[in-house]
């Protein structure tokens, strides 16, 4: 009998789309590197050490969980990505032990204990972040101003988001977030001043609008904040690449941003005494961890619904919760906890989904076309 050697045998299909889960995860991690690079540029070597510690903790956690389950899973990239995301959410000057512990916890307990990738119900990176927020609240809010802004630092020790919130009560009615920051001593960078001026001259003035200073700094990442969350524009660029390559699906981020923007616009002005429909959407979206969480943690397929309707519900819930937590919660930042809460709601959303599927199956059996091999023979 003639046999060809080393043939793989198995069941159909025998062709696959080239993309694998590992390539999806590594691709996501790669897309985050520019934003991380900006953080390291801003805060120097210490930031790099923080991230390295976080990634290291995650890899150790994965290796240990894998050893217990007799599986080698480091190649799938998911531990690396978790470590990276946890590290990027850290304040730059934090002790490396905290991110290392957080990632270790995230990967070994939150993910590993539930059976590894695909079986966890809570996003591990978010769990790690929440873990450190709960255990080391003070260290997790020790913000620093980027090196290259040292001369401008007016509100050092606070992020724009946190500062605006904590000083809102004392502000004169009718002022904006930016007014508060300026009153607090924040100065826009040179780039911000020139870009804002150019935009105003070229685009906004003819339209009768005026862009106040400061937003360009928020967009570019000239501000205090977690080391990977500074630059909104780099995070957005990464998201656009991943969205266009369909690594992230659009439904979850779109509905988070939509619902959050709507609520912010409608009610966000109230705390400043500006009345309804006067919220500063741009400021809220560009600050804090909102974008990183929205594009890189909330859409995690494992911990979000898989149907389109489910994803939209999930996103709307998350966006609303972010708004509520930021407005009424204990701290200025609410994105991480909002997603964790919605992670808990996923099984309920999925039940709605299966009910819909069952109705569809029942309808299909009630007489429409029936699948099968040619001519009804199965």
């Amino acid at each position, binding site marked *: 009998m003639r046999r*060809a050697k080393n043939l793989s045998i198995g069941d159909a299909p025998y062709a696959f789309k080239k993309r694998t889960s590992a390539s999806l995860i590594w691709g996501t991690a790669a897309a985050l590197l520019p934003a991380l690079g900006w953080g390291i540029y801003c805060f120097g070597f210490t930031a790099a050490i923080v991230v390295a510690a976080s990634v290291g903790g995650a890899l150790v956690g994965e290796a240990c969980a894998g050893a217990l389950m007799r599986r080698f899973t480091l190649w799938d990239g998911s531990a690396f990505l978790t470590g990276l995301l946890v590290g990027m959410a850290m304040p730059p000057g934090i002790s490396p032990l905290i991110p290392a512990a957080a990632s270790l916890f995230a990967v070994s307990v939150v993910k590993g204990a539930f059976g590894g990738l695909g079986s966890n119900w809570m996003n591990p990176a978010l769990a790690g972040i929440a873990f450190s927020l709960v255990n080391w609240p003070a260290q997790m809010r020790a913000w620093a101003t980027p090196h290259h802004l040292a001369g401008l630092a007016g509100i050092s020790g606070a992020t724009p988001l946190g500062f605006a919130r904590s000083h809102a009560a004392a502000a004169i009615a009718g002022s904006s977030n930016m007014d508060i920051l300026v009153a607090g001593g924040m100065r826009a960078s040179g780039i911000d001043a020139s870009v804002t001026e150019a935009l105003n001259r070229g685009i906004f003035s003819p339209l009768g609008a005026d862009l106040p200073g400061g937003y360009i700094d928020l967009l570019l990442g000239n501000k205090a904040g977690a080391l990977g969350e500074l630059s909104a524009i780099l995070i957005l660029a990464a998201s656009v690449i991943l969205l266009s390559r369909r690594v992230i*699906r659009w439904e979850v981020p779109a509905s988070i941003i939509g619902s959050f923007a709507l609520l912010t616009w409608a009610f966000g002005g109230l705390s400043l005494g500006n009345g309804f429909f006067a919220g500063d959407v741009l400021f809220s979206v560009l600050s804090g961890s909102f974008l990183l969480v929205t594009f890189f943690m909330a859409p995690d397929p494992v911990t979000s619904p898989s149907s389109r309707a489910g994803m939209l519900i999930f996103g709307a819930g998350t966006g609303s919760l972010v708004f509520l937590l930021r407005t009424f919660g204990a701290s200025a930042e609410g994105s991480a906890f909002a997603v964790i809460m919605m992670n808990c709601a996923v099984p309920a959303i999925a039940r709605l989904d299966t009910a819909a599927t069952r109705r569809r199956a029942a309808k299909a059996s009630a007489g429409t076309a029936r699948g099968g091999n040619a001519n009804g023979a199965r």
Partner: protein
Amino acid sequence: MRPSRTFRHGGIRVEGDFDWEQRGPAQNAFLPNGAVILLKQHSGKQARCVVRRGEYVREGMVIGRADGPFSANVHSSVPGVVRDIRISPLPEGGRAEAVVVALEGAFDRLGRRGERYLWKSMGRNEILSTLRDRGVVDTEAPGLPLFDLLSERQETGILIINAVECEPYLRAEAHLLADKSPELMEGISIIRKILSPKRTVIATTRSEDSSLPPPSDDGPDVELVRLEARYPQDMPRQLLEAVDGSRKFSPDDAVILRPSTVFAAYEAIVLARPMVERYVSVSGGALKRPAVLKVRIGTPIGDLIEECGGFLGPPARLVLGGVLRGHSVHDLDAPITKTTSAVIALDSEEVGSLLRSPCIRCGRCAEVCPERLDPDILFRLVKRGLRLRALELGLGYCTVCGACGYVCPSRVPLVASFAAESHSLGEAPR
């Protein structure tokens, strides 16, 4: 001709080598020195062997007799001596008897240009019994005998000739359509005589086919419909949905046949030839010269691969039928059967990563499922043994098309688990 149409829900575009083209009509493949003729090439019971070892068989002689309904006659595809009768594995799983015929002697019948039989005077039943005698089966798996497929039907709404090839590597049907269009038109007339359908459609995915000759004198109403090459456009529900957008005909009202089936019917009736030959596309990245060949049933696939220049490098996988619904084999002696449309030798790059990882619930499988199922959920239920829950969620509608398995980035063995379930469903009384 209208612009290309397609089905509504799900589906995939299969990446791969769609572009290889063979110029000119298909060549006859070399005759096999030893033809391995399986006695089960149809859906029903294995045919009863009617030859003995050492016996001389002529070409086209019956070597296996149909055994009950859905079984079909099997004929020797070459003249020669029965060298062996052995149990042989079937590509789709299971085993059956095979008659090995060593080529010897002269081609007294099929080599010559035969007379054309004037079938127009034949009655419906006479045509049907001739098709049965000559062992004509549907060339789509599982190979329903044409007699069983057509004889029970009194009234047919729509006859669809399915030349749709929406997977890479598959060329046989489209090639046959281009090579043999007058013969196919006559074959269609024969089938129409049996079924008298209200509408007859040839469905294709290739633009060249628009140059088909107009149908012959018999019926003016054979339409040509061009469909998008989106998988699984060639499956019955999707085909009917695309062809019959107005949903005039129910699935029970439709008969779908491959051009190769129609051609076999033509040869059986007009040339009085049993089903001993078929078009096979031989291709894949591991092969030197892909080609569409006219192949005798029973030819070992190793012979065809040699004829196509052999392997470029070590093949990583050999597939019979198609990369999405076919079967992999490792035996170069595996023979061509009446339902083998393609031999595909994939190289390791085409096979790609087979590394399984856990389901990440990305929802891609549900997005592409043409039957609107949630394969990841079904898989989890089947794996936990909750078959009834899975049936409630529509497992019974899975056509085992393979689309979900194709897109799954974790290579979760979705389709294999559904295939096992659908086999066990098939055994249950319906």
